[in-house]
């Protein structure tokens, strides 16, 4: 426990498992020849947690978020929770190996004890997506 005010609490380790994995899988001193371990026992998803910002998917989500402000202004119905579809933007251009996928899937496994809601949202396709939106999805926008 730290002596702090009400706006920020320092936790012993990152509260999002994504951040934990980012630390211990991507950082740390490397001894090239001897790293052999891979992660298993966890369903691998083909999703990279790090979405690409400049993609049509992102634009459509941003547009939706902005348009949803209208509903709030007009006192509309319940606002659907804004879910960041971490996966829909596709992966980064380069493949880093199985662990990239593992990170994401492990994150889902862990999400029960992860109190962060913005980065653990599983990829979720909006059911109302029009065919136009769907056909717009592509990986060509990746960096």
């Amino acid at each position: 426990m730290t002596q702090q005010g009400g706006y920020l609490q320092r936790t012993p380790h990152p509260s999002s498992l994504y951040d934990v994995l980012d630390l211990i899988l991507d950082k740390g001193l490397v001894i090239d020849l001897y790293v052999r371990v891979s992660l298993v026992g966890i369903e691998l998803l083909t999703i990279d947690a790090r979405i690409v910002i400049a993609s049509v998917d992102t634009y459509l989500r941003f547009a939706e978020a902005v348009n949803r402000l209208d509903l709030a202004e007009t006192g509309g119905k319940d606002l659907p929770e804004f879910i960041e579809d971490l996966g829909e933007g596709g992966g980064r251009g380069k493949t880093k190996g199985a662990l990239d996928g593992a990170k994401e899937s492990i994150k889902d496994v862990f999400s029960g004890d992860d109190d962060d809601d913005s980065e653990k949202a599983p990829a979720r396709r909006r059911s109302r997506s029009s065919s136009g939106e769907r056909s717009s999805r592509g990986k060509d926008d990746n960096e």
Partner: protein
Amino acid sequence: MTAGSPSGAPGTATYVYGVVRASEAPTIDATGVGRGAPVRNLTDGDLTAIVSDVDEGFVEAGREDLERHMAILEHVALSATVVPLRFGTVMPDDGAVTAELLRGRAEELDELLTALDGRVELSLSGTYEERIFGEVVAEQPEVAALRERMRGRDEDATYYDRIRLGELVAQAMAAKRRQDSEQVLAQLRPLADDVRVGDVAHERSVLSASFLVHRDRLPEFDRAAEAVAAENRARIRFRYAGPLPPYDFVGGGEAGPWG
């Protein structure tokens, strides 16, 4: 001298968690990754590797192994300056650890341990609250106009307008991200010995940064981070973690087999 049984037995390999100065070698009562062998110290000269025995064929790790790896390093970091190794580092036996790590990279390890002495890693990341979109609409006339034009119209009919709108929002967000992250870093950088700024992890990320901070300055850094969070409380939610082993400050951008 080394506590526990040195590996070298058939079917056994040595998993390495990190390296500390021998003078700071910790007392560890912990279960290691893989087969759950006790964690032990392997000392050569001035350096001690934190290791445990694993099965020679230890090539598959699960959630529990990740947790143990992290917990062991955090425990070590409580009382010692540690150079953490990347998860999954297995060497053939203790002899290889001694020869190729403790001796083979002694100079590099010594330099790292000196640079990291008494320092810990603090991680701070920020995410925009959804109200950031209201800010964008208020600040960007073109966004507001486009939004008005689309109001009430069928979603299919506004497909390209939506893309255009989203693109404008994305540009505005990128500008905000630059501005806000610079401001946050400007306030915290003076208290840190080193800073690493990570990639933007998702759409509403503001920044993700790791700070190398001397333990003595931890309270000061806490206060500064608190001030940053308080200033931005309406629009950015921060997550703040540590003290962590200095994962971000031991390898540069060196790519591992999966990095």
